[in-house]
């Protein structure tokens, strides 16, 4: 089963690096989609099936925390796991993200292995939820990251 991945970062080169890292990790990728900020990400999510969102926090127009808030408030979108890949990974910021339901985070600078490990962990959970065919429970389940 291949996964559609949305990479959200205002740096085009960082998006390219993240896509390359994920491609080389062995995670089965269906399609990559890209967005340069939270607004663009929401536009992609409105019209495209996405399995996981990889997002920066510090972005113009709409940052990652606001994107996470919008996603968590939407009945359908909140089923999509969101992983932060960010420099802003202070305990306070991550506690705020955890309360909003973030699935995990990777701190920049990152090793490719770190992205691979967290992505596998998050996707396996999402895949298990689909197999169980109980989306209403999955949506309400708390992340233990």
């Amino acid at each position: 089963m291949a996964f559609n991945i949305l990479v959200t970062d205002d740096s085009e080169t960082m998006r390219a690096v993240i896509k390359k890292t994920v491609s080389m990790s062995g995670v089965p990728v269906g399609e990559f989609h890209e967005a340069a900020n939270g607004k663009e990400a929401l536009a992609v999510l409105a019209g495209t099936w996405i399995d996981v969102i990889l997002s920066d926090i510090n972005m113009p127009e709409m940052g990652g925390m606001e994107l996470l808030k919008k996603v968590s408030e939407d009945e359908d979108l909140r089923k999509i796991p969101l992983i932060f890949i960010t420099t802003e990974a202070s305990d306070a910021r991550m506690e705020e993200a955890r309360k909003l339901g973030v699935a995990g985070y990777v701190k920049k600078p990152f090793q490719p292995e770190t992205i691979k490990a967290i992505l596998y962990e998050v996707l396996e959970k999402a895949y298990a939820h689909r197999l169980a065919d109980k989306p209403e429970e999955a949506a309400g389940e708390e992340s233990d990251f």
Partner: protein
Amino acid sequence: MDEDLRRIIFETFSEVFETMFFTFLEPLEEAPGKEELGRGRFIEAKISYSGGCKGDFLFYFPWELGKNITVNFLGVDEDEVLDGQITDTAAETANMAIGSLLGKLDPGGKASLAIPQARVLADFSPETMLDEVGLCMFNTEFGTLWVVGTHE
């Protein structure tokens, strides 16, 4: 700028450059003499933060250094790299370096980073920075990285 802050900056920037760009930094204790400083193409990247603490940092990358870290970052050949990618990488470097630094200086996360910006300086000389109090210099294989910063 006190010595503790200089040490933290060096450790933090080294981690970013080694992890993301496979590039090693060596701190320069003394600035080169004016006669050794040429003029050339540089990339200026700036970023600031405010909240529980505030700071401003300017990075000056010699073009060759900017190009080299972009090549290593993207994992492509030298002739495949576009000028826009080099500028973008410089901005992202400032973001990662100062974001990581802020994580150490402000572990409570009260301060927020601004959006980094970068531009090409076609004919620049670092001579203008020699008297800056917050000047840090790092030697690399592709020239000296110049950083001027304040933190309070």
